[in-house]
């Protein structure tokens, strides 16, 4: 009987921290699929958003929704293989919309290419029962935050000069 594969050792570290936070959360909606659908809708909105700040905010919302669906499943003992499959497929769809929206940039093309690799990795993960999926949206959020920090830092220097 196929099970939910374990995450890598690196992922286990931050997941322990997140699970610690989960104890203090109150969930208004107790269906994990609600957070998946929310994540899909927000990812689609990404196609129409302009501006690094708003993009970073949307990616952050998608990541929070992705975390919440797992948190709800763990809290209410709903975690199962089907839920994990939904999580993996919704994550790939969400990545598709996010990186398609920035396909016009070089970095966007690179992320989109990685997204295609991630689909293949997802299929491999399902087959091999090993979790080998790249957290691309998290990497992209780091990239957006880096852009924002650089932008505001430079603006600050210009103002000082």
């Amino acid at each position, binding site marked *: 009987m196929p099970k939910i594969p374990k995450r890598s050792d690196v992922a286990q570290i931050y997941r322990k921290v997140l699970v610690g936070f989960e104890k203090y959360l109150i969930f208004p909606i107790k269906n994990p699929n609600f957070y998946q659908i929310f994540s899909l809708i927000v990812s689609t909105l990404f196609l129409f958003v302009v501006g690094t700040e708003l993009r970073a905010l949307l990616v952050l919302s998608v990541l929070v929704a992705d975390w919440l669906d797992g948190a709800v499943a763990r809290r209410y003992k709903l975690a199962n293989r089907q839920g994990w499959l939904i999580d993996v497929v919704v994550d790939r769809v969400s990545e598709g919309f996010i990186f398609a929206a920035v*396909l*016009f940039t070089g970095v966007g093309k690179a992320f989109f290419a990685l997204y295609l690799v991630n689909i293949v990795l*997802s299929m491999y993960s399902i087959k091999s029962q090993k979790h080998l999926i790249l957290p691309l949206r998290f990497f992209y959020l780091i990239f957006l935050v880096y852009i924002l920090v650089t932008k505001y830092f430079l603006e600050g220097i210009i103002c000082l000069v």
Partner: protein
Amino acid sequence: MVTLTHIISASYIGARAAGVSPTETNYIILTFLSAGILDIDHVYYLIKNRAFYKSKGYKGNLHNARSFLHELPGFLVTGIIMLMISLFNYKLALLMGIPMMIHLAQDLLAGVSIPFSPVDKTQITLIPQKTSYRIALDVVFLVTFSILWIKFLYA
């Protein structure tokens, strides 16, 4: 979802994401085609398994009338096409790719999917598979996006 709903809704999202203007008729027709073309695989399976559908009916069985292109590997194929086209025409890449991706996402949202087919045959659903829910979702999408299309074309 029915093909008409896909064509109306997915094409609108694709056209707006690519920044098409109402006068660019060729591009608009292309989005309609991209939004609906994936449903061609249903025809093949419906003809191939016509005896099964005659006896069991279409209701609740149409997820079996899909090729792997209607599941996660479909995103891979669409993505490769998009990435290749985007190297010389970003707008065209979005016009062809986004409606297809929306179509696949809508099918994932509304119906029964076997997303990792052919690797894993587990069926998943995101919403309860009540006929009334599915019809309501179809109607909401169809009406909302028809209004948006009319507003866009007559703006």
